[in-house]
């Protein structure tokens, strides 16, 4: 008898759904709405008064309804266009008008195959979510049992709680055949009362002050076993609370949703473990890789060659740097040769003064930058200038330091050319670029030497000292150069006259203007 009852309950729910006249349908209130669109998809999210939600997303080719993929689409296809058109309307509509529009929406008739299936499912989803079925007032009777006397209202109430049918089915499974069922009502078994059957309560509170000889099933409500109250059989609970005030449940409590919860917990744990293991594995392999690169602790056939590769690589890196700086220097000589001359001359004649100015300028760079920005930001006219000031000032400072370093490198090259040291004979002062390259190699020599030394074993200390020397030389050269740039206003205001000028000497000796020439001088003398 019980299986047939269970089937009957479910069937009644289904029949009630199928009978439009038996229940009053109206559209639910939409209290919150979110419409979003991007190149990868478009989505709609609705929130209802009872905190329920409906989420539909078209996302990267998937049609997703409440988190479940129900179909697929391609960007720009007919379904995508129809969906975006609907969302375009939904954006401007609220509550009732929005609900009506969504319920009225139907899949474009021209769709076929999977697109049509997805569209139909969406259409159904809107219908289900937005049409609210309300039981008429007379259906709210409190005394419901499993007999045919009030089966219609039972069905309606079940439909109202259709989400609980699954839980009810679980709870009724294997139950004793002799029982009473109460839907949407509170039931009390009195202090002196003993019910010789099982009791099923759906969406209500069962208060036990007396005794129940059978089992108890409570779905979506509460079971309250008071003092002296007892249940001989099991208390089967589905989505319900249990209150025990010294009452007895002799058959124990069975939460019929435990399995489902356990399954979800297991799944969650398994996923968490898998993610954790994957992260751990990735981290381990990355650490291993980093350690291998850093220390080369694992054996490799290339291991003996690593210091050589590292040293040669370092030397090559410095040579590339010399090449790049040489190119930049050539550019400076070509377009701002006189400025470079003036800066180089200042660096040569007063290196200590230039270095002090350079250090002071370096310390003042950031405060000047910030103060300049603040002062400019005070006025409307200054705001655009401030916007340009923020990136351009550091750029100008870097350019000045580079220009100064190149000028100092040229001075160093000239000094090396005159020094007579071995391997400096190739530096010819007549060619400024060659002089510059020689100077750059000289300034970077400590770094290059440290790379070469690193190839040999047991010379780590010497390598470190050479590297430190290279850093010191570079800093001093940069500060002297930067100071010389500041002193000469980027070479526009020479601190000292330039070197030997052949034209000027010739003009002084011959009393002529070189540009004008000797013929012009003779003509002038003839006229005199």
């Amino acid at each position, binding site marked *: 008898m019980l299986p047939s009852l269970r089937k009957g309950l479910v069937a009644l729910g289904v029949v009630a759904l199928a009978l439009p006249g038996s229940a009053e349908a109206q559209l639910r209130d939409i*209290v919150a*709405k979110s*419409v979003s669109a*991007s*190149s990868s998809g*478009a989505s709609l999210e609705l929130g209802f008064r009872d905190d329920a939600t409906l989420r539909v997303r078209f996302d990267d080719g998937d049609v997703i309804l409440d988190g479940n993929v129900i179909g697929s689409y391609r960007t*720009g296809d007919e379904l995508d266009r129809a969906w975006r058109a609907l*969302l375009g309307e939904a*954006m401007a509509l*609220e509550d009732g008008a929005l609900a009506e529009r969504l319920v009225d929406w139907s899949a474009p008739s021209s769709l076929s195959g999977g697109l049509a299936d997805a569209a139909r499912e969406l259409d159904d989803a809107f219908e289900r979510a937005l049409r609210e079925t309300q039981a008429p007032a007379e259906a709210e009777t409190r005394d419901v049992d499993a007999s045919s006397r009030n089966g219609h209202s039972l069905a309606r109430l079940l439909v109202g709680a259709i989400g609980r049918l699954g839980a009810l089915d679980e709870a009724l499974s294997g139950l004793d055949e002799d029982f009473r069922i109460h839907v949407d009502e509170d039931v009390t078994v009195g202090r002196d009362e003993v019910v010789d059957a099982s009791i099923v309560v759906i969406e209500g509170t069962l208060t036990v002050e007396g005794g129940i000889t059978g089992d108890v099933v409570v779905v979506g409500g509460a079971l309250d076993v008071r003092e002296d109250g007892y249940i001989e059989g099991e208390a089967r609970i589905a989505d319900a609370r249990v209150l025990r005030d010294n009452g007895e449940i002799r058959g124990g409590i069975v939460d019929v949703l435990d399995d489902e919860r356990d399954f979800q917990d297991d799944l969650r744990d398994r996923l968490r473990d898998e993610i954790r293991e994957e992260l751990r594995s990735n981290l381990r392999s990355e650490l291993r890789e980093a350690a291998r690169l850093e220390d080369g602790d694992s054996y490799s056939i290339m291991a003996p060659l690593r210091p050589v590769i590292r040293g040669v690589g370092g030397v090559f890196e410095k040579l590339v740097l010399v090449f790049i700086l040489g190119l930049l220097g050539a550019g400076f000589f070509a377009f701002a040769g006189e400025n470079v001359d003036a800066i180089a001359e200042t660096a040569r004649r007063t290196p200590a003064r230039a270095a002090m100015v350079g250090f002071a300028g370096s310390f003042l760079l950031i405060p000047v930058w910030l103060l300049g920005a603040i002062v400019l930001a005070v006025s409307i006219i200054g705001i655009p200038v401030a916007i340009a000031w923020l990136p351009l000032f550091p750029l100008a400072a870097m350019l000045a330091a580079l220009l100064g370093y190149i000028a100092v490198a040229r001075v160093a090259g000239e000094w090396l050319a005159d020094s007579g040291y071995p391997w400096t004979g190739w530096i010819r002062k007549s060619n400024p670029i060659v002089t510059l390259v020689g100077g750059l190699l000289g300034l970077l020599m400590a770094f290059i030497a440290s790379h070469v030394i690193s190839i040999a074993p047991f010379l780590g200390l010497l390598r470190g000292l050479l590297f430190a020397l290279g850093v010191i030389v570079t800093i001093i050269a940069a500060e002297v150069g930067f100071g010389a740039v500041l002193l000469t206003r980027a070479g526009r205001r020479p601190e000292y006259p330039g070197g030997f000028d052949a034209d000027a000497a010739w003009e002084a000796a011959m009393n002529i203007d070189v540009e004008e020439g000797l013929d012009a001088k003779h003509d002038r003398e003839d006229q005199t």
Partner: protein
Amino acid sequence: MRTTMTIAAALLVPVAIQGQSWKTVTMSRQLQDNDEVRVSVDYGSGDFSVRSVDEGVLYRMNLRYDEDRFEPVADYSGRRLRLGVDAIGRNITVGRSRSGAMELELARGVPLDLDLNFGAVRADIDLGGLSLTGLSLSTGASESTIDVSEPNPLEMETAHVEAGATQFSMMGLGNLNADRIEIDAGVGEITLGLDGRWRRDSRLVIDVGVGSLELRVPEGLGIQLRKNSFLTALDSEGLVKRGDVYESPDFQDADRRVIIDLDAAFGRVSVVWTRAEHGKP
């Protein structure tokens, strides 16, 4: 409106915006009752506007944002409404993003305790028509225009405005219906309009760091200026100095009086007299 149009365009022309990570979203919530709601809005960069709306919604928000860097926030629970965008991860944004935008409409007639926080934005805010029980507005390096175009029907104890490095203009202060208005400005150009419908005598407390401050005072409103400044020039045309304070000539007889406590460090303060535009002072 621009954001609305963008959303509509994005919905209708999906192919045109492919390859970009911009996302547009419109969110709204139906008005369910008229109890007070505490509204907190946070927006970092882009264009930002606030208006009142009378269409049965508590709020309607249109957003355009970079979905790789931000996510929208619309959280309503326990009479608290939080709106805006949150940054994803620890991205550092340099400069101002002109492409991002947020348009917010808030319900008329619902008592709102409004807290607006925005950073490097170009803000255009009209609080007219809103029923404000409190106002706290904080802005960073922005270009902000704030207007209270209609009188606030509810009394407010204190309205607090904090502006960083900014070009900041706030008009219709009288319409705020506040006992006390506090303006705390760091660096920039500040314009304050004392127009609007003053319901009672009020106090305006202004603290300016570096920059210029222009006070636009409608004729007929009695003001008393108490200045505490360091290196600040005051152009007090139309004010009479009485002891340590400057007053409008009719201050004692004026229907409505505003006492201004001004604390300024560097810059210039000027008082400009105007004809009332937001109703009688």
